[in-house]
């Protein structure tokens, strides 16, 4: 034991010296390394820095994002919510009131200055079938649903500024709950019926050359000139194509909003809501013009959609090209009364735009 210790003595001493020397030489080096911020930064654990929080604020989340809420795929910050709120509340909402208000004002002023478009000649008493029973039923169903949807839609956008303060919480809570219920359930029915109606009236609303002349002469709304028009005149065709384009957007955006079952994101819903509000307000504004022209604005127009028949004079004045096609099919009021009492159905008259 002692021999072996003695034998390794010099060796151990040497090793110990080496360790002491090494630590003396290396210690300052390692200390220097720890104090070097540049070197440390190179090995530092990357952290969530200001840039990451800026990214979060912009609404983005990386792939390694986890939300403790079951099934949630929400980004941490919904960055577009405030933008949507501003567009909806500060632009769409006032613009809708301006559009509807100015349309009403224009119609009132037009009625006061120009007045009703009367028939130029006496009624002949002979009638032409313009709208079949199916078409009338379709029109009035869609019209009724349109008005219901317009009123409930307006209530969803503007109602809170009026009815809660006027009638109190109890009334308002039932009213607005019913409003949303009706709007959401009537909407799809309206959408389907509008599409059927558009399909039914597509052929008569295809644009023709004389429609351009019709528009150039302002539809004959002012003055005594009556531009050429087929079964549907330029104005009716314009209303048709507004319904076929803007109306289609209303249906599609409404579908997105009404059936949140296809993984729509909050951004999708914001877009759908903006589209739905803008397009339906456009439809409402234009529909006021349609209602005006179809009722108090034109003598003899409304009876076409109520009874199905229009007077020969009216047809000649407003739809001369159609009149030329169907003038041999005129029926007298007596014949009409007879066929109605015998239960005969309406026979559609031939049409070409």
């Amino acid at each position, binding site marked *: 034991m002692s021999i072996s210790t003695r034998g390794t003595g010099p060796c151990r001493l040497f090793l110990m010296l080496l360790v002491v020397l090494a630590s003396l030489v290396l210690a300052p080096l390692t200390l220097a390394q720890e104090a070097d911020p540049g070197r440390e930064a190179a090995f530092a654990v*990357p952290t969530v820095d200001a840039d990451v929080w800026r990214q979060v604020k912009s609404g983005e989340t990386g792939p390694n994002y986890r939300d403790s809420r079951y099934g949630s795929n929400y980004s941490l*910050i919904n960055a577009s919510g405030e933008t949507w709120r501003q567009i909806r509340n500060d632009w769409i909402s006032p613009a809708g009131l301006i559009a509807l208000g100015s349309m009403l004002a224009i119609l009132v002023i037009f009625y006061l200055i120009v007045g009703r478009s009367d028939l130029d000649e006496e009624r002949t008493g002979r009638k032409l079938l313009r709208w079949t029973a199916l078409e009338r039923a379709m029109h009035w169903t869609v019209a009724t649903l349109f008005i219901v949807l317009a009123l409930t839609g307006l209530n969803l956008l503007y109602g809170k500024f009026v009815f809660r303060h006027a009638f109190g919480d109890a009334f308002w809570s039932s009213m607005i709950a019913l409003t*949303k*219920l009706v709007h*959401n359930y009537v909407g799809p029915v309206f959408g389907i019926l509008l599409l059927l109606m558009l399909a039914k009236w597509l052929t008569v609303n295809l644009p023709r050359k004389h429609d351009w002349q019709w528009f150039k002469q302002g539809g004959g709304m002012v003055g005594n000139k009556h531009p050429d028009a087929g079964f549907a005149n330029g104005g009716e065709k314009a209303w048709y194509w507004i319904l076929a384009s803007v109306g289609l957007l209303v249906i599609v955006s409404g579908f997105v909003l009404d059936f*949140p079952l296809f993984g729509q994101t909050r951004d999708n819903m914001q877009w759908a809501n903006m589209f739905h509000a803008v397009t339906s307000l456009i439809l409402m504004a234009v529909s006021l013009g349609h209602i005006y022209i179809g009722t108090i604005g034109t003598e003899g127009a409304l009876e076409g959609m109520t009874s199905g028949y229009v007077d020969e004079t009216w047809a000649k004045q407003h739809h001369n090209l159609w009149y030329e096609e169907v003038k041999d099919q005129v029926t007298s009021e007596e014949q009409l009364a007879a066929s109605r009492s015998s239960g005969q159905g309406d026979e559609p008259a031939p049409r070409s735009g």
Partner: protein
Amino acid sequence: MATMKFMCDAERCIECNGCVTACKNANEVEWGIQRRRVVTLNDGEPSEVSISVACMHCDDAPCIAVCPTETLYQRDDGIVLHDKDLCIGCGYCLYACPFGAPQFPKQNAFGERGKMDKCTFCAGGPAETKEEEYQKYGANRIAEGKLPLCAEMCSTKALLAGDAQEVADIFRQRVVQRGHKDGGWSGNPRADADSLAYDATHQG
């Protein structure tokens, strides 16, 4: 009047989900609703960070602005509450909210969502009786002089709730001490990074 706010110190959050559980327990919210959630960024990476999120009771709350029924309203102390009797479940508050706080029990055809639910800062909501209030909105701890249970139960005191000024003061003090060269967090490489949770004046 105080202005009540939540604040989550992400440098302290250990994603234990204690706040989520405390909230569920205090308010007995219905199945499927989770008023508070914990979000983890860079999950599984060295830079992983977690933050507890619920309604942040915004000063200029977008949910209040877009609600078509005036279901949502703000108290004088800044707490945003909701009136379940007025809610029609249109979902607008959720589209507008920056934090995904409003939730609905259902998501069915014809926009049938049920009535919206969200964090009340443990301040209940409008109701005739205490029992009705608890059943509709959960606890009203504020009325009892207590703070929201999520923040009270937070094990690391990452989640703070209370008057905005006091919460800000606590956080400011933390930031200064975290950056201090004698502090417990000194030498932590995170302290040298560009992080607002550490006092910039002590860097370099």
